């Protein structure tokens, strides 16, 4: 049987070629995603370990959690004498006080903006660090050492003067260039190293430090020393292994890569599922062609099980070779994905690719398994072939859906719709996911019932276009299972694309509507993500001092733990906020924040069952769980304007957070001051803060929308890949159905159908399948997007924005692509020799 499988697969290789391609493409995507994220993770690990080389233990301020949303939390500065206390502990050989934090670098008036952070750190000599001077000498006083990679990228040489800023800003002379470990620098980061006093000045730490690095004395076990130190210093301080601290830093940086991995693998899975439809379809059609041959085998004594084995053997061959090819291609795909990601603003470390055994196994297993599963249905049908069918003269009509399938399908559909609707109304995202799965399962089961009906409705205009149009519609309706599988594959891809489009435009709409409650004329914002360096408080002070400015109000953001979930909060100045924003309170008062406590968005309060006077437990990294009194409730629009549903005063914020930077400074201008003149004045005032950007509301909103657009653009491009596989499916199905309909086509040609009419007919079939997919896909995408937005808006009011233009573009593209997918089969049909077609053998 196995040899028969092999020779069959080889004999049908042209028919299985597109199936093979679909498996290979899907697997390439999976393998590429794994290789890319593995590589990025490994490179980040290496970098962080390198920077911590030589350090046994690190003492820092205690924190309830290390990192939130991909950013390490800021910790309290340590008192200056702590280094001495640590040094005095038995078993400690040497200590080094360190001051480090986010900074900015300006060269010749231009800010250096790497994709990742600019790290302002303290220079250290061996054995504490892996810094290796490439040129010049160590920094002292008004001097700085930069990483060699940044220097090379920006044409900085020893002797140049650059501006380094954190809380304060200083011009410093470059006296050295350093490598880090074996590398020239850290990927996507800029490293700026100064001596300890300069770092303390720039970071406004006074005499404090951010960490104390420790090297244990010879013969002292590091774990023992760690316990001793922890006991000696008390719970206020955290003592971690040097490599552990590095690992924690790496974990924070890797969080975004983990998100990327999930997104990429989800998209790859979509591609594989779409491919599975194609595989099932191809096997179904090829096996129908071979029904007589299989019946002959059965008549000759093969058992149904043997036929099943035969077909699955062929599937195994296709799956295994396709997966092997795909895995090999996947390594190349990793490069392409890295390029895509960086064009969407997701910077990943550059370096040699990591191909793990796991990647190879996952690629091979995923490809083989999906092929086998997809072929199982057709194989079981083939195994049921009765031996008498070998004697049948005419081809059997395609079987209609069975009753059991109908009942299962409708039940699933009902459950899915109810689940989705309920979850959307209750704003539960998990429930929405479950509903989506049920709905998709229902569509797969009901596809052969729904697709022909839909095709009949959508294809109505075709019947007015003569016999070719009528025949095109008929042949699509005639093969329910085939039409369903082909259309469903494309519909799935299109559903995901419309889903992303609706989600994206709704998120943008939420962003745009948030500006409505803000009345500020201008705002000063960190040009970087505020997590990579916010605005020094000096910025707000200078702006406030300008005669053009009537009022300013600063806003800060922070992370907190809400049970197990990381959440965000906003800190405002209740006294000045009303001058730059129109905050609508539905209960309590904003001014009450002065006495501590928290203001909640009204719908969040309702959901949590909280009202003014109740308390809310919030866990902060700096001081753990705190109970804050709810002092006011604000309208949902106002909450959106302030970006989060939880608002503290700046004073309360300072108690719970170490960060001392503003995210945004809102500015109200004095009467009679023109915006242009005011901008000029503001820009001049903050000129030496390279990350301070002066914007108006529209520009700020556009910036946010662009960032969302970039990421969604990346996802859409990658989804286009799934659509490509689905289009291959249309080409494949039609090409196979042309082979199947050779006689019919020959007859049509004999009685006078021209080649033009014939190829028109085939193209119309392709477009009709695409049209069925478009209707299903867009409807599905819209429904799922609406439900998902409802599910996600637990914290905010529901906003659904349907991007009509974008969706119309998707529809037009898909139909056009259907036309293109039909070109090859149409050509093939038109070229069919009339005589071979009507030859009766």
């Amino acid at each position, binding site marked *: 049987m196995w040899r028969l499988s092999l020779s069959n697969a080889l004999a049908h290789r042209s028919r299985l070629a597109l199936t093979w391609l679909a498996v290979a493409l899907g697997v390439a995507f999976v393998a590429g995603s794994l290789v890319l994220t593995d590589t990025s993770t490994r490179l980040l690990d290496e970098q962080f370990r390198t920077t911590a080389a030589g350090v046994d233990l690190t003492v820092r301020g205690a924190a309830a959690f290390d990192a939130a949303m991909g950013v390490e939390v800021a910790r309290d500065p340590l008192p200056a004498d702590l280094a001495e206390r640590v040094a005095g502990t038995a078993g400690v050989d040497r200590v080094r006080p360190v001051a480090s934090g986010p900074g900015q670098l300006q060269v010749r008036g231009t800010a250096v903006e790497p994709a990742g952070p600019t790290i302002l750190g303290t220079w250290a000599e061996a054995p504490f660090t892996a810094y290796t001077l490439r040129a010049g000498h160590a920094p002292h006083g008004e001097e700085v050492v930069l990483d060699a990679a940044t220097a090379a990228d920006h044409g900085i040489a020893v002797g140049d003067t650059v501006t380094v800023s954190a809380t304060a800003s200083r011009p410093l002379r470059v006296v050295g260039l350093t490598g880090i470990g074996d590398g020239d620098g850290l990927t996507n980061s800029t490293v700026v190293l100064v001596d300890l006093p300069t770092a303390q000045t720039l970071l406004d730490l006074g005499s404090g430090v951010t960490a104390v690095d420790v090297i244990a004395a010879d013969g002292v076990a590091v774990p023992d020393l760690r316990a001793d130190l922890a006991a000696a210093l008390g719970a206020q301080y955290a003592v971690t292994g040097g490599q552990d601290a590095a690992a924690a830093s790496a974990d924070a940086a890797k969080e975004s890569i983990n998100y990327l991995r999930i997104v990429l693998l989800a998209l790859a899975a979509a591609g594989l599922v779409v491919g599975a439809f194609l595989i099932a379809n191809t096997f179904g059609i090829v096996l129908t062609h071979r029904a007589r041959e299989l019946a002959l085998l059965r008549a000759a004594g093969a058992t149904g099980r043997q036929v099943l084995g035969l077909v699955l053997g062929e599937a195994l061959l296709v799956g295994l070779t396709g997966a092997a090819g795909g895995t090999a291609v996947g390594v190349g795909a990793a490069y392409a994905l890295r390029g895509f990601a960086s064009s969407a603003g997701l910077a990943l470390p550059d370096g040699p690719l990591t191909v793990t055994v796991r990647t190879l196994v996952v690629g091979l297993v995923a490809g083989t398994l999906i092929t086998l599963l997809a072929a199982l249905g057709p194989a079981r049908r083939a195994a049921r072939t009765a031996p008498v069918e070998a004697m049948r003269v005419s081809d059997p009509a395609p079987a209609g859906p069975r009753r059991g399938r109908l009942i299962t399908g409708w039940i699933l559909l009902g459950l899915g719709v109810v689940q989705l609707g309920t979850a959307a109304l209750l704003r539960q995202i998990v429930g929405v996911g479950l509903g989506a799965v049920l709905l998709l399962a229902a569509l797969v089961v009901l596809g052969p019932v729904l697709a022909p009906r839909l095709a009949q409705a959508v294809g109505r205009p075709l019947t007015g276009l*003569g*016999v070719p149009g009528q*025949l095109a519609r*008929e042949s699509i309706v005639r093969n329910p299972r085939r039409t369903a599988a082909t259309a469903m594959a494309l519909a799935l891809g299109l559903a995901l694309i419309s889903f992303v489009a609706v989600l994206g435009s709704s998120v943008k709409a939420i962003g745009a509507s948030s500006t409505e409650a803000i009345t500020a004329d201008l705002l000063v914002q960190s040009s970087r993500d505020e997590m990579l360096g916010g605005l020094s408080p000096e910025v707000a002070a200078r702006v406030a001092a300008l005669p053009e400015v009537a009022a300013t109000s600063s806003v800060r953001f922070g992370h907190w733990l809400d049970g197990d979930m990381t959440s965000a909060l906003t800190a405002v100045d209740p006294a000045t906020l009303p001058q730059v924003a129109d905050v609508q309170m539905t209960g309590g008062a904003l001014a009450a924040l002065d006495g501590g406590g928290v203001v909640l968005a009204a719908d969040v309060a309702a959901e949590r069952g909280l009202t003014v006077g109740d308390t809310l437990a919030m866990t902060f990294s700096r001081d753990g769980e705190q109970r804050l009194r709810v002092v006011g409730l604000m309208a949902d629009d106002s909450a959106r304007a302030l970006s989060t549903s939880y608002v503290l005063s700046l004073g309360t914020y300072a108690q719970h957070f170490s960060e001392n930077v503003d995210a945004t400074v809102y500015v109200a201008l004095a009467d009679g001051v023109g915006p242009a003149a005011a901008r000029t004045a503001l820009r001049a005032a903050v000129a030496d803060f390279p990350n301070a950007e002066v914007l108006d509301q529209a520009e700020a909103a556009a910036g946010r929308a662009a960032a969302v657009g970039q990421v969604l653009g990346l996802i859409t491009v990658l989804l286009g890949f799934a659509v490509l596989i689905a289009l291959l499916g249309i080409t494949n199905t039609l090409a196979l159905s042309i082979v199947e309909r050779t006689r019919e086509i020959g007859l049509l*040609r004999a*009685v*006078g159908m*021209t080649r033009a009419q014939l190829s028109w007919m085939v193209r119309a079939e392709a477009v009709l399948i695409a049209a069925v997919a478009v209707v299903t896909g867009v409807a599905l995408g819209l429904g799922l997007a609406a439900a998902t937005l409802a599910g996600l808006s637990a914290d905010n009011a529901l906003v659904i924005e349907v991007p009509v233009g974008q969706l119309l573009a998707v529809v037009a593209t898909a139909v056009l692509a259907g036309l293109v997918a039909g070109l090859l089969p149409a050509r093939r049909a038109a070229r069919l020799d009339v*005589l071979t077609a009507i030859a009766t053998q």
Partner: protein
Amino acid sequence: MTVTDPQLAPPPQTRPAIAARAVDVVKTYGRGEAAVRALDSASVAIPAGEFTAVMGPSGSGKSTLIHALAGLDGIDAGQVFIGDTDLTTLAERDRTLLRRERLGFVFQAFNLIPALTAAENIALPLTLAGKRPDPAWMNELVHMLGLANRLDHRPGQLSGGQQQRVAVGRALIARPELVFADEPTGNLDSRSGAALLAFLRDAARTYGQTIVMVTHDPVAAAYADRVVFLADGRIVDELTDPTAETVLARLAGLDATRLDEPVGA
């Protein structure tokens, strides 16, 4: 059934006396050692208004001749005329249009488009050309063929005999100059076959419809006005007003001459 309205009958006087002609047609399949000369300088004239049967042993070139005459297949040398039109000078598209407008076909099997009803299958050559069938002619045809209450049925719901009668209806609907029938009764039982052949003969007699039929069955050939015999790619004999017995006798003679030929000739 007889014709009551003379206008329904095609006007035979406007047709040339010869409906189709093959002149020294050569057709070779394959190349080199494997080459088979299916037609070897075959010449034949099909008189208009007659029912002609083409007979011959397997491999004598019957089907190739009819395919060449119908413009379904190209030829290597010689000329083929439908009326005065030289098919060898026509482009593929023009040949298709000629088939659609001037010829009709009945094949042995797979004659109908499964997705279309009987009525739609009959009208197919006209609808492909963007025309509608003449209702009176359609009505007469379906009554004569006994299909009046089967028009809405799909091919799958019709018996083999009914299917072939629908195919005959389709061949006649456009009142073609020439109808080609390739073993039209090959898949039918003898009763259905006899009915179909009688209908073809009536069409020739009543409407002056020119019909060329390929068959290997002497009984079927006996329905024709004239029988043309093929052997080894050439016309070797002809018989008018045949009966099953005379056809069988000629065929036996053909086989005898073939057996007399030296091996490898």
